[in-house]
């Protein structure tokens, strides 16, 4: 059993359900390579589209799976940037990574930095991983030049391929609406708890489980127990 197996399965079921009802499409990664990278400031008046504005729904998830993905992929549920047709829309960015990540939180941080430090010209990102929120603004120039969420997915795959032990990446974008983001709230909450527990045992270096707020998730996820035991052993030696 992998650390995030439970929520990853829920996310994959959600995506599969969407694809069965023709509510998703796979974006060809190769077609979207090479968009220049740039850190931007995009003010409201320069914004053509705003995704995941704090007033709208927003979700940013990152998790890993033990099973090896057959290929890297970018799946879009909902309209792409040029098709959105309105100025703001709810947004979810889900990044699932396959590989071997024994070192728990340290590995998670590496993956997190690769995902959230990715930049694209004409797109501004603000993320709050602790609240699983992502907010992006896209300027008109980038939109006119054909910027797509495929470019973002491709950039994320490229950034993650440089992280050790990553064997495959699945990126899922959701722009279809708040209702679909709500369907992801259960796996999102589980991922948040697992990451929180992992972070706590790594940062605090205290292994007294009595009264710990993550006791339930640690009892449920065997992999968390393994991480805890390994850290405890390291501390004792």
């Amino acid at each position, binding site marked *: 059993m992998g650390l995030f197996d439970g929520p990853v399965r829920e996310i994959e079921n959600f995506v599969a359900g969407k694809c069965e009802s023709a509510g998703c499409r796979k974006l060809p990664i190769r077609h979207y390579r090479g968009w220049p990278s740039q*850190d931007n*400031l995009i*003010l*409201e*008046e320069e914004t053509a589209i705003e995704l995941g504005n*704090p007033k709208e729904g927003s979700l940013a998830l990152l998790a890993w799976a033990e099973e090896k993905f057959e290929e890297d992929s970018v799946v879009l549920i909902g309209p792409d940037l040029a098709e959105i047709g309105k100025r703001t829309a709810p947004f979810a960015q889900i990044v699932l990574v396959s590989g071997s990540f024994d070192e728990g939180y340290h590995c998670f*941080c590496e993956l*997190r*930095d690769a995902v*959230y430090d990715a930049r694209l010209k004409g797109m501004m990102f*603000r*993320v*709050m*991983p*602790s*609240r699983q*929120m992502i*907010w992006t603004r896209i300027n008109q120039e980038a939109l006119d030049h054909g910027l797509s969420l495929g470019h973002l997915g491709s950039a994320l795959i490229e950034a993650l391929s440089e992280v050790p032990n990553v064997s495959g990446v699945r990126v899922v974008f959701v722009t279809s609406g708040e209702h679909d983001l709500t369907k992801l709230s259960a796996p999102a909450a589980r991922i948040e708890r697992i990451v*929180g527990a992992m*972070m*706590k045992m790594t*940062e*605090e270096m205290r292994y007294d489980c009595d009264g710990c707020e993550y006791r339930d998730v640690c009892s449920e996820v065997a992999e968390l127990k393994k991480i805890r035991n390994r850290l405890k052993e390291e501390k004792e030696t």
Partner: protein
Amino acid sequence: LTPRVIAVCGKGGVGKTTVSAITSHELFRRKDRRALIIDADPAGGLQMALHFPEGTSINQVRVETINEIKKKNRDKKDLARGIDYMLARALIEKGHLAFLSLGRPEEVGCYCSVNTLLQEAIEELSGKFDLTLIDAEAGIEQVNRNVMKAVDYLLLVADTSAKAVKVAETIRRLHLRAPEKERPDCSSIGLIRGRRLRGSKGGRTLTSLAGSLRMRPSESSTAKTFPSSTCPPVRRRKR
């Protein structure tokens, strides 16, 4: 050189907020550069003068970050991202201007790391704008506490009172006396003196003066700019 970060300083009630508001308005009218306006005065007068709605202040971002730490463990990078997010949310935008207010300090204990991260985030944010204008708190405190390290143009405002002139002079001296590495990176210091807001004879009104600032040193009789290394003392004009 065109200054990038301007701080308007001086004694309370001499017209700092008026100068800042007029300059902000002028920047808004010109539409030629993206500017970040920071109301660093806890009284929040600039926000009212510019008719910006009340939003989240920098101090509220600080408190929110501290509460976040209290609730969950957070590593430094995670916190820095969170602060960036909250600052972006706190920005009040109007055209190519963006506004941030310092707000009232709220006591939640000493969190130096948060203060440092916040200062770094503001400096980084400011770096993405063509120009940053800071309406400083009255007096010398913010200059003294090295709050305005990145300032490259110190704009002193004084009226004709001895006290206002003394405060302006103290700020100038503090700036020049600060150790090199702690000193704001000012290439020049400017002085706006006198309050001739109504029908001034021969003098220029603050409004016309602000219009002429053009973010470049003015050569008018009421606004002077000196290279900071040779900056002469501020003295009361003899009548």
